[in-house]
Structures are given as C-alpha cells and as structure tokens.
C-alpha cells in the first residue's frame, strides 16, 4: 500500500484543503498527459475517405454497427466492438457494457406480495397488491434481472405468495356469498 507519508515532504498525509487523511495507490494512467495520447485528428487529404461525422478527418475505422467510416475521435471501443457514438446512443449494441441500470421486477413483485399482508393496517390492500404482484411476476419472468443476480427464486416466491393471497380472498368472498 502506498503511504502518503512517502511523498509528502512535510510528513503530513492529508489533503491541505480539507485535511482529509488519505493514501494513494497510483497506476501509470495517472501520468498520461494529453500530449502523450495518440493523434486523433489526422487531416483528410482529397484522396482519403473521410469520417462520416468529421469531414475534415481521415477515416480509419468502420463502425461495426452501421458501417459508417469513422475517425479515431468517433471510434468507440465498446464491448470488444468498434462503434460510432450514434450506434451506441441508439442502443444497437446488446452488450452488457451498454447497460447503466436495470429494473428489478422480481424485487418489486416480491415486495408487493410480502409487505401489505404483514401489517395490520395494510393487509386489506392485498386484494389489489396480490394480483399486481402476480402480474408483475409473470411480466418479469422473461425480462432480464440484475446483471449480477439472475435467479428467479424471488419471482417464484412472489407468485406463490400472491396466489395464496388471491386464493384466500376468493375463499373469503365465496364463504360470504354462500353464507345463509
């Protein structure tokens, strides 16, 4: 572990602005200045193919999504493919790297199935929430779950609990109807 004392001449291992004590583990990327980066705007000569987005730049890649010619500025190495920003924005890649978030239908369904019946005040809402939980569990069955947790256990649990509650409501109404 890199100790901040190693590089603070005055031996004060803290930020001089906020006095936060910290240590730093550094990597080579920290020392790369813009001057060290590859040239990204080679000017196109009249006989060169030019970038679709920057006519003044020479094309050096082809977008694997739409086939447009791209200069290094527009080439995005995305999930092992070289794509243009337009393709990424349009969601033409299904790579998991493109996903910024997911809705967890299993979590919502399970909450609807579990929480309302637990509380004295809210148990009667289960007449609405139980069918909703069942519907969401069915809706979410083929929807992608979390990137890092793919089990359908929650969906199954939500379905079972919802069906039990729906059954209980049906039994309640049926017993009220047949009661003399």
């Amino acid at each position, binding site marked *: 572990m890199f100790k901040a004392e190693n590089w603070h001449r005055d031996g004060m291992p803290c930020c001089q602005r906020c006095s936060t004590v910290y240590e730093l583990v550094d990597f080579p990327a920290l020392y790369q200045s813009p001057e060290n980066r590859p040239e990204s705007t080679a000017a196109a000569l009249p006989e060169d193919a030019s970038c679709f987005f920057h006519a003044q730049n020479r094309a050096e890649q082809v977008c694997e999504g739409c086939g447009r010619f791209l200069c290094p500025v527009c080439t995005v190495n995305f999930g092992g493919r070289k794509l243009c920003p337009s393709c990424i924005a349009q969601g033409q890649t299904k790579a998991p790297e493109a996903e910024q978030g997911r809705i*967890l239908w299993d979590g919502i369904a399970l909450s609807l199935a579990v929480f309302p019946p637990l509380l004295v005040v809210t148990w009667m809402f289960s007449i609405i929430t139980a069918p909703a939980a069942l519907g969401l569990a069915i809706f979410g069955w083929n929807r992608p779950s979390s990137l890092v947790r793919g089990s359908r256990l929650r969906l199954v649990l939500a379905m079972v609990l919802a069906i039990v509650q729906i059954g209980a409501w049906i039994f309640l109404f049926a017993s009220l109807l047949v009661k003399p």
Partner: protein
Amino acid sequence: MAKPKFFGPYRRLAPVRMHLGGYSSLWLAKDYLMAVQSTGYSDKYSRFYLRDIQGFMVEDSERRFYWGVVLGLLGAGFVLTSLLVRAHWAYTLAWLLLFGIPLAWNHVKGPGCKLYIITQVQTSRLQAISRRARCEEIIEFLRPLIEEAQAGLSRPGNLDTQAAVPVAAGATGAAPLAEGSAGEPAAATQPAEPEAPGENSPQAPLNTPSA
C-alpha cells in the same frame, strides 16, 4: 481473498454491503470493474475500465468506532436493565449475545475506510468497501490486473512504482490532478508553492516527492 463468487462474466470482489437506501457490491469483469448500487427495485451500474483507472484513494473512517459505541451502549443498556429487574438469566444471555456477537464481529473486521477510485474524469466512492483489510486485499488483487491493462503506459522516469502524485481531491470528487507537462506531474518537477487553502486554489500542487 475469500472464495470468489462468479455470476456470468462477473467475479464478485466484495460481498454485498447494506447501507441506507439500498446495498452495494463490487464486481470484476474481463476488463473493467463494476460497482453495483441497488435499491432492491432497481440496479445502477458504474463501470471503471482497468485501462482508465488512475489510482485508488483510501481514506480512514470511524465506522468501527461508531458501530462499537452504538452496539456497546445498546447491549450494556439491555443487559443492565435485565439484571436490574432480575429477569431470567436466559434473557440476559440473549441480550448479551444479540449485541455481543455483532460487537465482536465489528472489531474483528478491522478499522473502517472509504475507498475512492480515480479516473481522468471522475473520483467515485466505492461504497461496497468499508473496511481497511478488505480494501487492501482488493487493491493488491487488482494491482497486477490494472498494471497489465496499462502495460503500454509508462510512469515518469524519476518516479518508481510508488511515486509522488499530486492529489487535491476531497470526498466531493474534485479533479484530483495537478497539471503537469508531458507525462510528469507538476509537483514532481518543481517544489510546491505553499498556498493557503481556499476556494480559489482547489487544485494547487500539494506536495513533492520525498526522494
């Protein structure tokens, strides 16, 4: 490191950590780190490509102390109360275990810390890591992977692998780097000017190498 858990292409680096409003975890894919923030109803993914990681910043936190105080006071309160009211010994033992085990576990896990990841455009806290021991374990695990991913990059010649770096970032995620010339941080080439901390100098060079 504990036995790794895999899910698809992801390897879990840190177990799920609960906090206010959800839980966090940290995963390693082929060429990036992925921090997952979840509320239970939605996930949010933050990816940090190994080739882009400039460093980790580790800050001490008082997490262990505060948890120790809370658990200790609550445990002592319940145990003393059950003794004062001459409750059955099983109640006293139950309170003792209820608070004593988490208290011991809190102590065994070691001191707390906050881990920040630094890239060229952001300084983000990795909330899944909150203890110093696991933090160091993960950094040591990631170090060769990151250096391999950045094999084409080099450090300035006068800096070894643990070299001087000017950092002026606080917890607010201010840009961490002082401006330097062609691969050299400014503070590595010239002594830092002593400058009073203030709003007008958030990125002032802070330090110089000791060597």
